[in-house]
């Protein structure tokens, strides 16, 4: 029977949760790298036992980890992220120019076809790539070198490149998103980039319709329809039907359109999920009720999913990289909270149950569907 492996990054270590295809009995392994912040773990689609991990610390900086046995053992790989050439400057919080300075790896995106190739989205915002299994890293400098680069500003969490999407139908097309610069697309394998923010409106910046400066929180796509993108922006849930060339709002009847993660059902490209959060000043769910909202119409019409989730006195947050779907049928969906709970649903979100309740604050959740 097939199974799933859920990779959980937390403020104090990594955890690997495994279950068979029924997804009702779970084995919890960890903490790996106890005491370290694990921003993200992600497995290679081409070789599922190859997993990459970003391990960071305010004291000791960035460490990169790689497992070749599905997360049982780990090997330290390269942690030198040197910006290409003279790094230059970007806008700082006070309006002055600030040197680009590497802080940490937020997101890892392994190649769809080559286990040794992996992309790393970092803070201060840049995209790196390794083609030797994480031993060495080179910047795809055309992104940071875009003429708008010096005008990019950090969001409250730092100026992070947090989303990397690889188009399965076009190996040259890469999407990336940066807080708070916006979304970008490359059509030449990462050499050159252009902003894809037309249609976004952000009241928190001087020109709400600016080409860059939008605080994009997350972008998701269904692999069968890579030109359709869904975005959770700081405020607003957005949709593009032309690979980001233009966006329109699909927040519809959500109780609030602020939030962080957004995901697409594994088998239904028009079924999407968000976790509404009260506001940018109240990073917890409305009314103390933890509700995932599902749209089966690609946005605009949303239904709350509450069965098995706390519906009173719940004040956790769900971060942008902390939701993922498996590829089983019915589709499973998982998310982790700032309170250390990881919830799972094996029926496309209709009912939920905690897999584990008391981990450190969850930073990221990824799922691997195993044969």
């Amino acid at each position, binding site marked *: 029977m097939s199974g799933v492996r859920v990779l959980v990054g937390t403020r104090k270590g990594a955890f690997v949760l495994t279950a068979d295809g029924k997804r009702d009995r779970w084995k919890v392994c960890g903490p790996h790298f106890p*005491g*370290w912040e694990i921003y993200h773990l992600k497995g290679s689609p081409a070789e599922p036992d190859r997993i990459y991990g970003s391990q960071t610390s*305010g*004291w*000791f*900086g960035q460490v990169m980890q790689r497992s070749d046995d599905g997360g049982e053992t780990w090997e330290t790989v390269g*942690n030198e992220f*040197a910006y290409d050439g003279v790094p230059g400057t970007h806008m700082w919080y006070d309006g002055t120019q600030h040197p680009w300075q590497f802080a940490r790896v937020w997101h890892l995106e392994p190649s769809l076809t080559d286990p040794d190739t992996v992309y790393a989205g970092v803070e201060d915002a840049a995209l790196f790539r390794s083609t030797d299994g994480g031993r060495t890293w080179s910047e795809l400098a055309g992104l940071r070198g875009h003429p708008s680069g010096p005008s990019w500003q950090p969001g409250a969490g730092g100026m992070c490149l947090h989303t990397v999407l690889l188009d399965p139908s076009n190996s040259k097309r890469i999407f990336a998103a940066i807080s708070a610069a916006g979304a970008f697309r490359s059509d030449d394998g990462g050499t050159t980039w252009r902003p894809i923010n037309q249609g976004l409106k952000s009241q928190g910046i001087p020109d709400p319709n600016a080409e860059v400066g939008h605080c994009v929180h997350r972008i998701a796509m269904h692999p069968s329809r890579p030109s359709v993108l869904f975005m959770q922006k700081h405020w607003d849930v957005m949709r593009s039907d032309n690979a980001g060339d233009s966006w329109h709002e699909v927040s519809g009847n959500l109780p609030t359109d602020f939030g962080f993660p957004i995901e697409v059902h594994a088998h239904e490209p028009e079924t999407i999920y968000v976790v509404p959060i009260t506001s940018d000043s109240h990073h917890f769910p409305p009314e103390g009720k933890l509700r995932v909202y599902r749209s089966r119409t690609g946005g605009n019409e949303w239904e709350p999913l509450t069965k098995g989730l706390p519906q009173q006195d719940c004040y956790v947050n769900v971060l942008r990289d902390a939701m993922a779907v498996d590829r089983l049928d019915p589709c499973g969906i998982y998310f982790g909270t700032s309170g250390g709970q990881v919830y799972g649903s094996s029926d496309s979100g209709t009912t939920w149950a905690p897999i584990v309740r008391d981990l450190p604050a969850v930073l990221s959740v990824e799922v691997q569907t195993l044969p």
Partner: protein
Amino acid sequence: MIRVVLPQHLRALARVGEEVELHVEGPPTQRSVLDALEARYPMLRGTIRGHTTLQRRPFVRFFACEQDLSHEPADAPLPEPVASGAEPFMVVGAMAGG
């Protein structure tokens, strides 16, 4: 032989005990001890000092012989008891919350 004490997180990363022993040519300095440490344990590169700047990370301190040597020049000789192996060179994670 130079004795180096590592903080718990770096011990785990390097898969060593509390103290490691290093051979350093000539009078030991912060730079030569850290060079030898990183040569023996490459996974520690970038965790104590920057890859290219070789500057100490802000929340890492260097102690020896009950002195804070963090602000001493990287090429200054370490105290004689460190050079003789009587006292360890300590890499310390600064006390901070979280």
